[in-house]
């Protein structure tokens, strides 16, 4: 494999090394300061945007008051108190309970329905071909890109009091249900789709060759492998649904039997003054519920995943 006799030794005159001949310190001083400063900026930004506000909600919701003594360089001496009873009252009074319960079961139902249909749609997207499939994929992504208020407008006019198809879901839980299905579908589908794509079908072929029918194969072979992804999609859909505001703000009407938690918090906020802590309290409750559910679906998903890879 001898190549052409090019003029190698001469041509290998080394071009000069890069300009800055800093010969000390692999980690140059400027680099270190830069990374350090950048990280500090990052942490500052995140604290400003996320960490401090979350702390503020927790503080107001739980009635945490902190008394500081002095701002000097010497240590702050502070004492804190929590008003748990106020928190509890704000969260368990009749209207609050109603709102939280409504959001909770609606979100669970919506996540469940879309979990099932998400799998169906993913199957069709991954394994079927027909004219217009691209269009279908695009439509599924619409709620993802569409602002929630636009979804809200659309739903309230289509299924509201002046409904052109004569379906009036104004101020009903059904209206909320439809709106939530609308906004959470992409999550359910997209959680399952890539996992399904990665299956090569060999296990299913093996199952069929052993005589199992389509449904049997699906239930015993395909579904279990998809379970972690389905659980993840369920968690995502639930988290989205329980916090959803824009799309349901219009069809849920005002105060009434069909006020979900997010609207309830907003109403409390609008009332202002002493209701701020009530709003914060319900927010905390909602956060805890979301956290619990996300954690449990996460754990369940990992556990199933682990069992699958053994």
């Amino acid at each position, binding site marked *: 494999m001898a190549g052409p006799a090019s003029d190698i030794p001469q041509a290998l005159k080394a071009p000069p090394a890069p300009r800055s001949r800093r010969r000390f310190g692999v980690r140059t001083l400027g680099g270190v300061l830069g990374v350090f400063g950048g990280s500090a900026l990052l942490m500052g930004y995140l604290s400003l945007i996320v960490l401090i*506000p979350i702390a503020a909600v927790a503080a107001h919701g739980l009635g945490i008051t902190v008394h500081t003594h002095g701002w000097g360089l010497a240590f702050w001496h502070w004492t804190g108190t929590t008003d748990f009873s106020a928190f509890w009252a704000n969260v368990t009074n009749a209207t609050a309970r109603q709102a939280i319960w409504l959001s909770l079961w609606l979100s669970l139902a919506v996540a469940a329905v879309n979990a099932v249909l998400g799998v169906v749609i993913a199957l069709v997207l991954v394994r079927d071909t027909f004219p217009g499939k691209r269009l279908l994929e695009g439509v599924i992504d619409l709620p993802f*890109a569409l602002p929630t208020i636009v979804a809200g407008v*659309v739903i309230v*006019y289509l299924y509201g009091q002046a409904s052109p198809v004569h379906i009036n879901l104004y101020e009903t839980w059904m209206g909320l249900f439809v709106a939530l299905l609308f906004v959470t579908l992409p999550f359910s589908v997209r959680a399952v789709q890539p996992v399904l794509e990665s299956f090569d079908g060999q296990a299913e072929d093996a199952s069929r060759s052993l005589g199992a029918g389509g449904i049997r194969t699906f239930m015993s072979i395909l579904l279990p492998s998809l379970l972690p992804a389905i659980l993840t999609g369920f968690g995502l859909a639930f988290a989205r649904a329980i916090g959803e505001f824009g799309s349901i703000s*219009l069809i849920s009407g005002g105060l009434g039997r069909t006020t979900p938690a997010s609207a309830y918090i907003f109403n409390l906020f609008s009332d202002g003054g002493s209701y701020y802590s009530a709003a914060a309290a319900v927010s905390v409750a909602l956060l805890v519920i979301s956290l619990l559910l996300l954690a449990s679906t996460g754990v369940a998903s990992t556990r199933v995943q682990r069992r699958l890879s053994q």
Partner: protein
Amino acid sequence: MTASVIAPVAEPVRNRETNTRRRLPLRLLAIAYVSLLIGLPVAFLFGKAFGLGVGTFWHQITEPGALDALELSAKVAAIVVPVNTVVGIGAGLLLARRRFPGKRLLDLTFDVPIAISPIIIGLSLFLAYSKIGAFGPWLFKHGFMLVFSVPGIVLATMAVSLPYVLRSIVPVLIEIGETQEQAARTLGAGMWRRLFTITLPAIRWALLYGIALTLARTLGEFGAVLIVSGNVTDKTQTLPIYIYDAWDQVPTNDAGAFSGAVLLALISITVLVVLSILRARERRLRVDIA
């Protein structure tokens, strides 16, 4: 069925036929559900808005209130998207490449805006920075008002659109590893040159995808901005707020609400189309990397 096992190569056509017959009910179900749930309302939106007449539509869009709202939305996007892109890239590189104490916390912090209701996000910002908040009095003294102000809207929008760039690029950063940067380093490239000539180009589709998502979220954010803006017309209305306001009026400004909704929908759909093209490109690139 057994025939396809005995002679798999010889039966491709037959397989497809059997598949179609079996797939049909599922296909119909999927199409029906998606059409009814999503397709119908969106089609209705466009139909109704243009049914009012293109003239009315245009009149509504160019109404000063609407234009102001559009302008404000654009201004906010012009600030928020670049900031969150830079933050996403910086934090993304950290999360994907370095180990350090508190890494988990950093990761979780970026999960918060997605997992939490926008109402709660708006409320949290209000409780932290408005007059009654912890920093409120100090900020107020220095002339910063969170409520009824554009800075407040910017802040709220930053909070809700924070994670999209990061979540989009981190998996790709992890997948491609650091060897390309190491190679560039041995060839003499410094940190910034490596970032701009090697790292960012290598993740460009995922990066653009994340930016597109950030933009969509920024333009469309409603709940958090509603709380923070105080909803004073002509001053602090973004386009979504404008739409809500149109609906909230008595009598309901149907035309305004619809036109605004359509405009916002068109913008978002454009972003969506860009998104799908990007996703297709990214998928193709993934195959190459494998």
